[in-house]
């Protein structure tokens, strides 16, 4: 019996597929870095194109009456007189070494601003995503693929939720629960109770959208032959859904989660404004309004980097759940 030889062969097969996995991750990581470089470049040129005199913005106002010497000095200090390509390379160098400059409008190092606001932003994004998925799972597991009214009601609720703008729901939640019933604080960034309303506002439309996709996927999966096989073993309906169908059904939703994080970041800009929360979204908005170049650049870079990493993470997660090389759709 050639068991040993065959087992070696199989172990080789296993290590081959692990190294293939590793290679793919490395490839994606490399790609992500290239994308980040492109992002940084685009941001640089975008900021360059912005109207308005950066010197005047620096000095805190658009009015005239600034002496020539001051202008010259400030320009020199910020390297604003150099040719564009020199500025670009200085910029790249700075970014890579972590020096993001000083915010024009807040007169603080950009990194400090980032430090202060990244925490609450992350909290909000993760909390909303988690909440959205909880809602999706609860809704789809129990109401999918049923001939009775439950499935249709579930689907209708999801369509409704997806159509709701997050900032509107935020305003309503604010008016009802914060001002009306006084259950939650209307502003602030510390503590769990400040997270509740903003997360709900962001999570609801997302849950609607992901829910629709997941529901369709679950309905499709429940029609597959292997579900029937599981039932022939004596598995209950809920058991079949949770143990077998779920893993397959969430795959499209997971693919979407990458995009979802982007939507959450976009949404957080408005939500942070509405709920007066600390966060990168609100900071970016204010930075753009006040033409604060370094801060705009800094936040955009961080946000883009975070988004790229999040997408990478989502891809890895997908691969872990579904390691098949040729995916059957």
């Amino acid at each position, binding site marked *: 019996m050639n068991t040993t030889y065959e087992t070696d062969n199989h172990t080789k097969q296993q290590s081959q597929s692990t190294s293939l996995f590793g290679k793919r991750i490395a490839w994606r990581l490399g790609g992500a870095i290239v994308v980040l470089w492109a992002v940084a470049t685009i941001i640089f040129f975008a900021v360059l194109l912005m109207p308005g005199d950066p010197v005047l913005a620096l000095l805190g106002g658009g009015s005239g009456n600034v002496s020539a010497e001051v202008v010259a000095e400030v320009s020199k200090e910020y390297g604003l007189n150099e040719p564009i390509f020199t500025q670009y390379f200085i910029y790249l160098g700075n970014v890579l070494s972590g020096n993001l400059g000083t915010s024009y409008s807040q007169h603080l190092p950009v990194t400090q601003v980032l430090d202060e606001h990244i925490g609450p932003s992350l909290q909000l994004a993760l909390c909303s995503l988690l909440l959205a998925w909880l809602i999706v799972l609860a809704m789809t597991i129990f109401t999918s693929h049923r001939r009775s009214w439950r499935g249709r009601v579930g689907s209708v609720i999801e369509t409704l939720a997806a159509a709701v703008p997050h900032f509107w729901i935020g305003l309503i939640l604010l008016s009802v629960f914060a001002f009306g019933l006084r259950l939650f604080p209307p502003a602030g960034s510390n503590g769990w109770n400040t997270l509740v309303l903003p997360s709900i506002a962001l999570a609801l439309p997302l849950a609607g959208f992901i829910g629709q996709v997941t529901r369709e996927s679950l309905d499709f999966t429940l029609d597959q032959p292997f579900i029937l096989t599981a039932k022939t073993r*004596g598995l209950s309906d809920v058991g079949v859904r949770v143990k077998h169908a779920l893993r397959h059904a969430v795959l499209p939703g997971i693919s979407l989660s990458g995009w979802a994080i982007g939507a959450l970041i976009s949404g957080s800009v408005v939500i942070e404004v509405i709920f007066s929360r600390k966060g990168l979204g609100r900071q970016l908005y204010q930075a753009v309004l006040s033409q604060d170049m370094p801060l705009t650049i800094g936040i955009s870079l961080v946000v883009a980097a975070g988004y790229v990493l999040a997408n990478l993470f989502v891809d890895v997660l997908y691969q872990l759940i579904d390691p098949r090389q040729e995916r059957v759709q």
Partner: protein
Amino acid sequence: MSGKVLVVENLNIHFGNRQVVRNVSFTLEAGQTVALVGESGSGKSVIARSLIGLAGGNSRVTANTLLYRGQNLLTLNERKWQSLRGREIGFILQDALVSLDPLRPVGKEILEVLEIHDWGTKTSRKARVIELLERVGVPEPTVRALQRPDQLSGGLRQRALIASALALEPGLIIADEPTTALDATVQAQILALLKKLTNEGNSLFLISHDLAAVAQLADKVLVIQNGIVVEHGPTHQVLQHPQHAYTKSLLDAAPAEHPRGTRLSSSRQVEVRPSRPEANATVILEARNLAKNYVGPDHVSRPAVQDVSFDLRAGRTLGIVGESGSGKSTVARIVLGLLEPDGGSVALKGLPWVSAPPNSIAERDRRPHRQQISIIYQDPLSSFDPRWNVGQILSDALDVGGVAKSEIAREVSQLLNKVRLAPDVATRRPLELSGGQRQRVAIARAIASRPLIIVCDEPVSALDVSVQAQVLDLLADLQEELGLAYLFISHDLGVIRHVSDEVLVLHHGEAVEYTNAEDLFASPKHQYTRSLLNSVPRLPSAHNRVPATELLCDE
């Protein structure tokens, strides 16, 4: 274990207002195998599922008696059914690739049955899984148990599926087309496995469309048509002395039993055709040393086709037979010029048609001659533009041939007539047609350009036996009428035997045997050809006997 395992009396099944099964009755004794034979839509699958309580949510199952080992199945609620399933009644579906959870290792699937019914302890369950895999003939079970279905070959995963049904030694095993999705050699192995299991005393209820496979396994046969059992009795009797017309037509339609030149589907007597073109007719297609490599998902290059050469003569049929992965579809695409080979060449009527780089032939040089060669596929639906109806599909094909616009409508009618479809089919869409009708439309499109050669890539594999018979007869008639040459590709040796003048046998991309049909089937030279021939189950009326337990493990 004795006594009646299954007693069914007047089983009726309704879906809403439609009745799909009418007054079906049979019994299954312990240790027996009963087979239910029918084509698609006959209700056989519904019956199987009703025996395990999974006929579908909107079904209504009624019967005078439905007993499993004395237990009344009609009064069971869902909980009791769940207790019964897997433990007392095991179910095997076709195609383990989709019948086992694609994201789970097969060992876990088998383990699940044990867990659901609280059998044994954690360690004893694991041991049981290995034991079961050994019993169904899976080599290196400890390793295989950790692999997913897509990592196993067709035969191995089907064995794993069978193992999961056997896990708790159920009193009844129901198998719904357990061998249909498999290659011929693997089918033979699985049938042998099932035979072994029944020899060990298991009771089997087998659903199949394949009479020959049933002949090997079953003690009793029930033939079902449109929900009604039209004939039943001991296997030998039903298959050798059929009483009902439908049974007879099923037996008549089996291509393996009927030599070249006979009709499969006529209700009249079997006729013999006028003689076919001579063996030395002109060569119209020459393939020389075709080779093609493909790169797998692990970035390793493997040969799909290696050094394949053959000739096709005017008016004759060359059958290319091979199992999955043999490279036959690749050869078809190369011959059509849809895929460029890595080596070798093809000449059409003496003109260079396909050639490997660096001497490749440009598509625009080929295009004017494309009218001479057509193709029909296994799945015609995917070859039709989803927006078009039949008339538009055929007009589009006629348009290439430069037929004048005013003539097109008339030509479309003529084409439909030739493939024996009513002219009003032109207004229908392919989705509304049956499988057989769609294939006829595909054939009509193929002959529209008045070609010399039609490449038939598994054209009847997806069709019911009786429909298959009609389509094969149609192809034969058209060949005679229009002087067509066929390059007929199939995995079904019976069909190949029926249609071919010459045969090319492919195995792992290599041509292992190439000779005329008579010689091949009478005295095959290559070992693979012989094992292929032996794998094809034959009906008892034929003079070939199938060796019962010759397990050729090719995995």
